[in-house]
């Protein structure tokens, strides 16, 4: 007979119209003693304002150094079913496209070997399977790989690359995010499964500057779709928006951060000074039928974002302003540059130093020189605010 926990604090989180993880854990607890003990331990944690998971353990499967995160309760006698509660990261398909059959298969595998609880998806992008025991790791790995799945990254390795839905569902995709995310995943399998970096390394692929995967805030390498030429304007559609009551002047033109738009209210015509456009996507998002990205499309490569763990948060900044990443040759050049940067970072980086922190420590100028990229004015942390200026020639003259 399973124990029944009174969970008044957790119950509060079931109230309201929105989804609730408590509701889900309770559902799972009907089938799984592990999920039931999870409720008990979590309620106790809420009461004591104290977590009851020990600092991460080292568990894994043969042949891989990542993909499984060891988790142990520090109250194993009280909650024996969560004494082991390991997390498994499973590599998601590009853009999170599944068949319902695929979802049923992985859920069946997880009910057989774990708590049945999943996190679809973690902020890493992977499917996260929550809660299993050490003796189930090899069997669940076997079942997953036989069904065509693989583990994702964890620890100091290349984390599972992730991308937005891209051209699969979205008209703004400026390159094939799905394809490039898959290509990088397959090309760097060793780096994904066998941690050997100073710390984690993340790729995120966003098809346009809306950046639906938040790559600029989280990825060491953010690949964000952009265009070189002018925003395409459908003048008839602009008039239709105006006739239907859209306040183009206030809601579009005045919200343009570059102030590069003009609106003629009498003629109902929009004009854009494209050379000042910051690719913020606001006008396109408000008037999707009237405005579209230009036709010369590609991606901007940015480097160095991270969430605050060891040091504070960083946003990515521009490394390569424009790359036709759909082109095979330019993609190869992109991969060469990635490998060059990883070499420099692996050689000189400190333990648990992200590449963004590494660049801050050694200086962007030294980093660029080491990886063989010429500094250019687009490489700025805050556009139109703090251009990097390299006085190298000046200093050399002075020194002599």
């Amino acid at each position, binding site marked *: 007979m399973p124990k029944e926990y009174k969970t008044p604090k957790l119950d509060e989180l079931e109230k309201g119209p929105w989804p609730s993880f408590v509701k889900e854990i309770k559902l799972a607890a009907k089938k799984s003693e592990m999920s039931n003990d999870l409720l008990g331990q979590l309620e106790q944690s809420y009461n004591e304002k104290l977590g009851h998971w020990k600092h*991460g353990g080292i568990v*894994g499967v043969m042949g891989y150094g990542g993909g499984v995160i060891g988790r142990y309760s520090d109250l194993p006698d009280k909650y024996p079913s969560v004494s082991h509660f390991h997390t498994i990261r499973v590599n998601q398909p590009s853009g999170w496209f599944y068949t319902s059959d695929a979802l049923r298969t992985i859920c069946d595998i997880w009910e057989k070997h774990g708590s049945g609880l999943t996190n679809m998806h973690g902020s890493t992008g992977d499917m996260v399977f929550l809660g299993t025991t050490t003796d189930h790791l090899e069997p669940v790995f076997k079942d997953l790989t036989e069904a065509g799945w693989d583990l994702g990254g964890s620890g100091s390795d290349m984390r599972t690359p992730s991308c937005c839905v891209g051209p699969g569902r979205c008209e703004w995709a400026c390159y094939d995010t799905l394809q490039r995310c898959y290509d990088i995943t397959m090309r760097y399998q060793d780096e994904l499964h066998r941690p050997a970096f100073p710390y984690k390394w993340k790729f995120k692929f966003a098809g346009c500057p809306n950046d639906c995967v938040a790559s600029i805030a989280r990825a060491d390498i953010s690949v964000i779709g952009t265009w070189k030429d002018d925003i395409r304007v459908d003048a008839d559609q602009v008039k239709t928006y105006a006739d239907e009551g859209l306040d183009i002047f206030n809601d579009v033109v005045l919200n343009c951060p570059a102030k590069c738009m003009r609106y003629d209210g009498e003629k109902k015509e929009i004009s854009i000074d494209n050379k000042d456009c910051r690719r913020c996507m606001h006008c396109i998002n408000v008037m999707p039928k009237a405005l579209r990205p230009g036709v010369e499309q590609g991606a901007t490569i940015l480097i160095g974002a991270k969430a605050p763990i060891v040091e504070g948060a960083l946003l990515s900044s521009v490394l390569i302003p424009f790359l036709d990443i759909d082109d095979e040759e330019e993609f190869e050049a992109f991969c060469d540059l990635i490998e060059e940067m990883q070499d420099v970072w692996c050689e000189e980086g400190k333990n648990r130093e992200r590449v963004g922190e590494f660049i801050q420590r050694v200086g962007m100028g030294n980093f660029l020189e080491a990886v063989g990229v010429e500094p250019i004015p687009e490489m700025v942390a805050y556009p139109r605010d703090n251009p990097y200026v390299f006085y190298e020639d000046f200093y050399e003259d002075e020194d002599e």
Partner: protein
Amino acid sequence: MASFEYNGKAVDVDEDGFIEDPSVWNEELAKALAEIEGVTEMSDDHWKIVHYLRDYYKQFGIAPMVRKLCKETDTPLKRIYELYPSGPAKGACKVAGLPKPTGCV
């Protein structure tokens, strides 16, 4: 606390099977630990890794970074996984009797 038995002796280990007291390490124990990490026979190449890890740990009090391990022992990462299928951290460090490396999720 869990314990690990080999040749009629027992040592304390943590929940991941790392020995708690590095000073009780010996080669006989290493062989027994290797077995549970999927190593059937400890070859010279296996010992080279173990000795390097122990020397480094004695000197610096921590495990070396993986890249350093590969470089200094002239062993590519692929080869390390052939020798220790559960990898340098979970496999080789455990066999070498180092305290559990503190990883990151």
